[in-house]
Every structure is written in C-alpha cells, then in structure tokens.
C-alpha cells in the first residue's frame, strides 16, 4: 500500500458505510417492507425500481463500487485487530468485536444474496414476490436471511456510532453516550422493518 494513504482510506471506509451504503440499506429495507402490505404492493415497488434511469450505472456507483471498497478494506481492518474480550469485557469492546464479526457475516450473506437475486435477474430471472417466497420456503435460508439482515443492520447502526466519532461529530463522553442510545433505536427500528418484511414472504 502506498505510504500515508491509511488516513484517507479509513475515512473513506467510514464515509462509504453511511453514504451511500447505509442510505441504500434503509431504502432497500423500506422497499422490502412493502411486502407486508401484500404481494401487489411489493411487486409494484420492485417494478418501479426497474425503471431507474441508467440503472446499471447507478448500481455500480451507489452500490457495487462503495460496497467492494468497504468490504475489502473492512476485511483488512477486521483481521488487523486482536480481540481481547477475555481480559477487557467492556461494552464498547464488545461492540468493537461485534462490528467486525457482523461485518464478516454481512459480507458472506451479501455474496449469497446478490448471487441469488441480482445475478439471477441478470441471467433472466424475474425479481418479484414469488422469487423471495421461493427462497424462504427453505427453513435454512430463512434463518440465514434473518441472521444476515440483523448483522447488516447492527453493522450499520454501530457503524453510524463510530462514524460520528471518526469524523469528530461526537467528542464528549456524553455526546457519545447519547449517540449510543440513538443508534440503538436505529438498530431496533430497522430490525423490526427488516424482520417483518422477511416474514411477509413466509
């Protein structure tokens, strides 16, 4: 790696996790949530997205490229840490470990998820309610999706907390504590949205 690129890379990694990846996650979960309002509503929402102008370009710029950078650099970050929860079982140290763990789980989940949906769509499959209902007909896939979605949401919510620290938005211990509560609410709300969407397909 080139010299003195680390600061910029780390900051970029932190930024991309929130903008655009975090925003896309919220958008994605919101669209999924349409499934709780019935099959037609969900299919209608999916159909609308298919008409995004220059869709492939938007996908690459907003999703794939940021995600690839965030994932590759994230793996590097995760494996340079030596977790020491055994000796230091503080709350933030737990979050530190879980942030890395959920990052890896989310990556594994996303590789499968993109293969099973986006790549299948590129090969001619139609993305709709039935496609997801078919995936969720397997109990293993159901559990896998629940774990993957919860991991992604945790990683985003806790990442939002460390984003605020890394960019110097929350400096004082009190502001960081308030941010902990705020991101906890984000985690609970998005988890409710994500999980209820999954069960709409079952």
């Amino acid at each position, binding site marked *: 790696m080139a*010299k*003195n*690129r*680390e*600061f*910029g*890379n*780390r*900051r970029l990694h932190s930024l991309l996790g929130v903008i655009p990846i975090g925003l896309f996650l919220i958008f994605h979960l919101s669209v999924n949530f349409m499934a709780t309002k019935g099959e037609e509503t969900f299919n209608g929402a999916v159909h609308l997205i298919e008409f995004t102008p220059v869709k492939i370009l938007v996908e690459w710029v907003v999703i794939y490229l940021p995600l690839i950078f965030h994932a590759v650099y994230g793996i590097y*970050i995760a*494996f*340079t*840490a*030596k*977790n*020491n929860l*055994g*000796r*230091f079982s*503080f709350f*933030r*140290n737990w*979050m*530190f*470990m879980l*942030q890395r763990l959920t990052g890896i789980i989310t990556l594994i989940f996303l590789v499968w998820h993109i293969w099973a949906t986006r790549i299948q769509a590129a090969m001619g499959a139609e993305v709709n309610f039935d496609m997801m209902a078919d995936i969720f007909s397997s109990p293993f896939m159901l559990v896998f999706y629940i774990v993957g979605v919860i991991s992604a949401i945790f990683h985003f919510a806790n990442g939002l*907390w*460390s984003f605020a*620290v*890394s*960019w*110097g*938005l*929350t*400096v*004082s*211990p009190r502001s*960081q504590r308030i941010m902990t509560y705020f991101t906890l609410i984000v985690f609970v709300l998005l988890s409710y949205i994500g999980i209820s969407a999954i069960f709409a397909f079952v």
Partner: protein
Amino acid sequence: MVETKSETKTVRFIITRQDTPDSAPYDEEFELAYRPNMNVISALMEIRRNPVTVQGKHTTAIAWDMNCLEEVCGACSMVINGKPRQSCTALIDQLEQPVRLAPMRTFPVVRDLQVDRSRMFDSLKKVKAWIPIDGTYNLGPGPRMPEKKRQWAYELSKCMTCGVCLEACPNVNSNSDFMGPQPLSQVRLFNAHPTGAMNKAERLNTIMGDGGLANCGNSQNCVQSCPKGIPLTTSIAALNRDTTIQQFRNFFGSDEV
C-alpha cells in the same frame, strides 16, 4: 488487629518468566509469608532475596522494572491477574490469589516482567510532543494560558508513558503499526498549549500518517484502563474533529497557518 493469624498466612504467585527476548516463556510458582501492606513490588523483592519456587527449585531472581514506587513514573507496569497496571500500587490485600504476573506482551519482552517501552518514546518524538522554545535569541514570554484550560491540560499531562493503554488496545499488535492512544492524547495536550499550538498543523499531519490516529477502532479499552484517568477517547475524538478540518485544508488549500 490480631496479628497472630497473619504469621501463618501465605501469598502465592504464578509468574511468567522468559530468559531472553527470543526464548519461550514458562511459568514459575512462588509462595511467600504474608506481611501486612504488601504490594507486588515488595513481594518481588522478597522473591529476589530467596528465589526458590514452590517445588523447592533454586531459580534466578525475577527481572522487572521499577522506579518511583508511587505510580507516577510508569516503569513498573505489568499484567497482574490479567489486567495491565502498575505493580507498585497493586496491593496484595486487594488481589485474588494466586497472583498471576506476566509481562505486557504488546511490547518486546526483555526478560521476565521487563519490557522494552521505547516505541512509545519514539512516538512522542515522532509527533513532537513538546513546546519548541529554543532559538538563537530570546523569544520573550509566550502567550498566557487561561487557568481553566491549564487545569484541564494538567489532566492530560498526567500521562506517564506506562503502556497500559497500548496493552489494552485490540488494534495495537504485531499485525498493525498503530501508535496507540498514548502519543495521540499528547498531541492534543501540546496543540492546546498557546505556544505549542504554533505547530498544531505539523502534529496533526504526523498523526494523519500511517499507523496514526485513523487506526483507532473505538473499543475504548484505553480510557477504561488508564491508571491516571486520562480522557483518552475524548482526546482521540477531538483529534478526529481537528484532522477532519485539517484534511479539508490539505485538500482544498488554506491560508490558515
């Protein structure tokens, strides 16, 4: 106080030893007669007087570092019952037995409990953790510091380079070149000083280099472990804010000196 009981009371130690920087570590067990007000250092001195293990094996005296004996120099840090701390203020009465002593392995082990802490002093040199006042002529008195700020800065100046925060940090290890929380908080201290602030950008640019500030993973073990209660994570977050501004200045250019 009835002292008759303490005569039969003993203290057990399991000490991780290592003969040379490259040799394999091994454990040795010692048992000492209890004395009131014992600390880990007085126990180690007792073992040095008669280095015989529980098994009756005559061994070498244990090597460790110490200096001030009042928790201000930072030299006697070691891992005591799993936690890095100063051995001078580790009172036997407050420790669970057997007392386990090990070196802080984040640093290169010299021998037994003795570690080489030079990387921290190198970091201080790297970030210029001092106020440059030397010149070829008298520069006169510097700007005054508000009393309130001085009191705040005093807390940061309590850092004794003991190494506990580096030992506690999951991101300071052999896989990474992270300098750790200790020099970062000193950057904040010297940037806050009215004269030190004249080199603020220089220090910020140094910690924006490889192995610097951005390596912090916010586990916040450092602030929980610091024996001096230094607000290390507040310092790190404040520096994050300063470097955010500095990186924009570097990128877009600025007439700020």
